[in-house]
């Protein structure tokens, strides 16, 4: 057995100098400290993304993306295809868990200031992937072409249309027309399986490459301890095996969710029926949706909705550019302001999500 693996290794090494990569990997160490647990969430996000790709491709074998067949094809997957129910429910649940994991990952990076020099681009690509992930969620939500999704898409694209100047063209581009129709479904399908995956993959490659090249970011207290008293563990096999263990547990949780809390299908979308009561977007958009409700209809000369959209846009932009305006952390100082801002944002998001959910 050993000789076969050795021979295979030698054959590949001869062609791509695998040895260089292996020695590099063997030397990788992961810092061990109080905040080490957060290191796993990047990997979990990656794992969940891979699950989405695999289940997504499987669903693609049976899903039909036209407004007259989409709903029925998912009904077909749920009832007639062997284990179709499992694949579909896992895909729907993973979408939510992915966003959740990415948010934890992002906030842990934020609070640990891991975005500081030299990891600005890692942060940027990560934030962009978060936005694309939300785009995945929004586009994928429409694909079953059910009542809730139809109206959620209508409301969501309406809000996009509120942006001054570029809003209406963007809305028409997204919808494939002035209204949400079968054309919207076709577009969203295209975005969901081709455009967004393509862009995401490029960003992911850059992100992973940088992480591998630069190694794990060390918290400031850790950095200041002398080298020989730094606790570390080798990436391979220790961290990797622990990572895999975590992934295994997540997979099991997913299976349980799929069996005990199967994803609903609801009723087929009917553009001529009135919107059902209590229509609201998925939880990850809820805090913004709820906030918009609290802004008065008109504030001085600005329309309330436009103000809301612009405010969130501005906040998002500031958040995206944090490595560039938080100079103190880049210089090695402790920027308490970041912690306060972060805590405010987390509390705000949680509060408004809960408000939106229960009110």
């Amino acid at each position, binding site marked *: 057995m050993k000789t076969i693996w050795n021979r295979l290794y030698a054959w590949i090494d001869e062609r791509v100098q695998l040895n260089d990569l292996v020695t590099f990997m063997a030397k990788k160490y992961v810092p061990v400290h109080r905040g080490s647990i957060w290191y796993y969430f990047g990997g979990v996000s990656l794992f969940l993304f891979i699950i989405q790709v695999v289940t997504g491709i499987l669903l693609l074998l049976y899903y039909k993306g036209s407004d007259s067949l989409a709903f029925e094809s998912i009904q077909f997957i749920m009832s007639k295809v062997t284990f179709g129910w499992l694949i579909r429910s896992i895909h729907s649940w993973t979408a939510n868990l992915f966003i959740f994991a990415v948010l934890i990952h992002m906030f842990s990076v934020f609070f640990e200031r891991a975005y500081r020099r030299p990891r600005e681009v890692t942060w940027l690509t990560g934030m962009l992937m978060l936005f694309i992930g939300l785009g995945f969620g929004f586009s994928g939500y429409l694909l079953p072409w059910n009542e809730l999704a139809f109206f959620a898409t209508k409301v969501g694209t309406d809000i996009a249309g509120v942006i001054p100047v570029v809003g209406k063209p963007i809305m028409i581009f997204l919808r494939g027309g002035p209204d949400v129709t079968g054309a919207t479904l076709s577009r969203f399908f295209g975005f969901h399986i081709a455009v967004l995956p393509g862009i995401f993959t490029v960003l992911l490659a850059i992100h992973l490459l940088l992480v591998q090249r630069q190694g794990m970011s060390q918290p400031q207290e850790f950095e200041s301890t002398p080298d020989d008293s730094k606790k570390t563990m080798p990436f391979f096999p220790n961290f990797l095996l622990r990572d895999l263990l975590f992934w295994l547990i997540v997979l099991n949780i997913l299976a349980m969710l799929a*069996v005990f809390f199967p994803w609903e299908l609801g009723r087929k979308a009917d553009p001529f029926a009135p919107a059902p009561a209590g229509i609201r977007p998925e939880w990850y958009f809820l805090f913004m949706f709820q906030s918009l409700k609290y802004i008065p209809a008109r504030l001085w000369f600005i329309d309330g909705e436009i103000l809301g959209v612009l405010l969130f846009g501005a906040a998002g932009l500031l958040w995206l550019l944090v490595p560039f305006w938080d100079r103190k952390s880049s210089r090695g100082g402790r920027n308490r302001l970041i912690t306060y801002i972060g805590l405010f944002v987390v509390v705000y998001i949680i509060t408004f999500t809960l408000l939106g959910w229960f009110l």
Partner: protein
Amino acid sequence: MRSVMCVVVVCVGVSAQTALAADKCLECHGTVGDKPSSLFTRDIHHLKGISCTGCHGGDASAEDMEKAMDRRAGFIGVPKGDDVSAVCARCHSNATTMAGFQSVLPTNQYVLLQSSVHGKLSISGKERIVQCTTCHNAHGIAKVTDPASPVYPVNAVATCARCHGDAKFMRLYNPSLPVDQLAKYRTSVHGVKNAAGDARTAQCASCHGSHDILSVKEVKSKVYPTNIPATCASCHSNAAYMAGYGIPTDQFEKYAKGVHGVALLEKHDLGAPACNNCHGNHGAMPPGVESISKVCGTCHVLNADLFSSSPHKKGFDELGKPECETCHGNHDIVAASNVLLGNFPGAVCSRCHSAQDREKGFVAAGVMRVLIDSLQRADDRARVLVDEAEQKGMEISEAKYKLRDVRQSRLETRTIVHAFSAEKLRETAGKGFATAAGISAEAEHAIDEYYFRRVGLGVATFSITVLAVSLYLYIRRLERKQRQAEAVHY
């Protein structure tokens, strides 16, 4: 003495003259020999002391023609068109005037006539179709209770038929309205009695009204379908009125409790029959024993056809038993249900069929009941299983859709019962059984799949847990070895 007698005679003569002089019109016109005045001598108005001027106006005491028929004295000549009825109404719609004559007649006839179907404008557009005089005559008016009156019950029929039996006339107003009502009426029980002089039996006005006649299509008409049972019952449920005719008076009571009565009177389903749909309206007569299934069959086509070609037809006719009625009743028809069928005491079939010699009918009844009950149980079971699968969140819409077919089969078996053949029923029910079995199997499969998923999850979780635990132990051991290796190094 003679002078007193003279005075008396003169006085009497004068008063007689005066009395007659009060209607100089009649006196004069009577000598001319004109028809109205000869009729008027028998008129109820004349007998009550009303003169020609009562309607025509003018001065009844004037001997001079010009003075008598003076417009300034109120003479209106021969009233034409609506003026005729207006003249009658001047007194007959005035309660005070009528009370002055000790009359107990109603005073709303004119108002009713104006809103009735006869109150519409005639083809000339200048007057209503019917005036008071059309039915009551102008000069020889007699009381309704007087056999000489054209609206005396026995005569009313002919009066109405003067127009309503004239096809050319009716064509001017409503070409699609039949004109053979009188002919039909004469074949009916009412018509026969009426021709024999019975004034209590139903004639046109009894059902249609007299002054307040409305089209059959109007909801307030006495002969609008939902009102017909009450109209017929106004005589036929009155035991005192019907005494002497020798027929029961509980038909309306029974009908109102039966399926047809509930459908028509409570649910306002105009498809349900009123008295006239089974008995005829103008030609009203209960249908003969042999024709009952044909009458019921005008709506219940399939049942009637099946019955007519079944063994029961011959049997019932020979025994003189009325068809549909024997099992279902005539007025108090009970909603059909499974309990009617069977060969146990209490079932309709048992009234004739008994267990002796395992009689064929007895056996067939039993078999049919068993089949129908089994089909119902199969349907119920399929529904329960589909509900359970649905509750468990399994996708079962296709099986649910097929449940319609089972229900349809049940409806069809209820109809095929009337062929009274266990074989035919088995064939019809067979489709239902097969579909129900298929649905139940699909639903059970879905429920099994539900449990399979949970078991499958258990197995997968078990293998993952074992893997996770062993991986964890492996990691711990690995790190312990690494620490030991490091310790050795130092």
